[in-house]
């Protein structure tokens, strides 16, 4: 489904990703962990070309973007249409209701008829447990509810891959569970997911593979049970000691 080869990303002089190789199969859930500043967010943003990598290539569903050349606009559009992104701070549109947030992409980008888009948005909001909040503006919702609208908004475009960037780290502890539950449901339905998170419970329960990144490189990858209990690398061990 996704194949990343030799991915580099520089911001000016600062080299943030230093040759990432990564495979994600269809239906797999990959959890990415690593210290702050190690490049996790940048990696996710490269996956939907919100940041253009400096070198390397990403193949998604047989479409390859080769970053040694200028990436074509329709190639970027393809990556955007096949991936859904969920942000740490939700980034909902504050001037639109929950329902309008979810309908925006289908109506404006995919030109779906409004009633079709509305039906889909209603069923997605029901699915994330917000059946009673259609007409609420983001400021009227809790962080956990906003993040679930964020997930529904991404799902509305029927992406093949969902990318989550620390989706629960801005939430009060008592609101984390409701968001993780939605993500687990999604994983159980067979959605392919790349999730940056330090919620070890989620990784244990839902991940097929955990990847530890440090200083822009993949240090270690393994099944969650293996990686958490029996890390091979000293750096992984140190990091796990800090967060577990």
């Amino acid at each position, binding site marked *: 489904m996704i194949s990343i080869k030799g991915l580099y990303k520089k911001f000016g002089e600062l080299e943030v990703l230093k040759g990432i190789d990564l495979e994600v199969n269809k239906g797999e859930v990959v959890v990415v962990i690593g210290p702050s500043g190690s490049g996790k967010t940048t990696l996710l943003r490269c996956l*939907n070309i*919100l940041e253009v990598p400096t070198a390397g290539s990403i193949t998604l569903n047989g479409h390859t973007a080769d970053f040694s050349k200028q990436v074509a606009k329709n190639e970027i*559009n393809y990556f*955007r*249409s096949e*991936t*859904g*992104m969920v*942000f740490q*701070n939700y*980034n*909902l*549109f*504050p*001037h*639109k209701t929950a329902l309008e947030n979810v309908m*925006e*992409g289908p109506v*404006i*980008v*995919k030109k779906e008829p409004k009633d079709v888009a509305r039906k889909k948005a209603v069923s997605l909001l029901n699915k994330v447990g917000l059946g009673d909040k259609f007409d609420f*503006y*983001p*400021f*009227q919702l809790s962080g956990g509810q906003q993040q679930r609208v964020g997930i529904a*908004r*991404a799902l*509305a*475009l029927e992406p093949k891959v969902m990318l989550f960037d620390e989706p629960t780290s801005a939430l009060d502890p008592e609101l984390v569970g409701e968001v993780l539950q939605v993500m687990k449901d999604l994983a159980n339905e067979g959605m392919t997911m790349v999730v940056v998170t330090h919620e070890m419970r989620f990784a244990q329960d839902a991940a097929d593979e955990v990847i530890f990144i440090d200083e822009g490189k993949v240090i270690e990858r393994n099944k969650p049970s293996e990686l958490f209990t029996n890390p091979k690398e000293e750096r992984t061990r140190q990091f796990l000691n800090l967060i577990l």
Partner: protein
Amino acid sequence: MKMYLTNILADPEKIQRLLDIALTSLWPLLEGALYYTLPLTFISFFFGIILAVLTALARISTSKPLQIIGRIYVSVIRGTPLLVQLFILFFGLPTVGIVIDPFPAAVFGFSLNVGAYASEVIRAAIQSIPKGQWEAAHTIGMNYTQTLRRIILPQATRVSIPPLSNTFISLVKDTSLASLILVTEMFRKAQEIASANYEFLLLYTEAAIIYWLICFILSLIQDRIEHRLGRYVA
């Protein structure tokens, strides 16, 4: 001042005369306001805002030439007196064969002015919208124009209403300068009437009160718009 007042109060006939003048001049002044001051304001503001949005977009674009054109335009308009700009348009351009009637010349001048001042407001408002809004729109596949129209400008509008209302109210008052390029707007009407009966204080005060009333009503409308647009923020 005191003598003027005591003289008037001691003379009922004089009071009657002033009241008469105030009343008979009221309609001509209102006419000036309704036919010239207000249309001049609204039309100029309309074109000015279009110009301002385009200029703001040029200034935040990635194209160097567009940035430079926007900068020069804003700098020239803001760096020269409005009255001088109006004189160039109306008295200056005929020298090179371009003759514009008073009203269109005034609309042209005021629109250029609003365009320059409001573009700064709109630019700041657009830049005050968090980068995450652009990114969220891009990740759901929206392009630049869609993002701008559906996500960024609606939010920027809310931020810009108070400063743009100031621009608008300034414009109402600035239209009095059009009297100097022969537009028979309210202030010119006041001048014409006063030069016939010499009641300058009375007529200019009357004009001032009407200007103030217009601005007062506009500020009430501003409050309502702010209230409406504020419904999605806590």
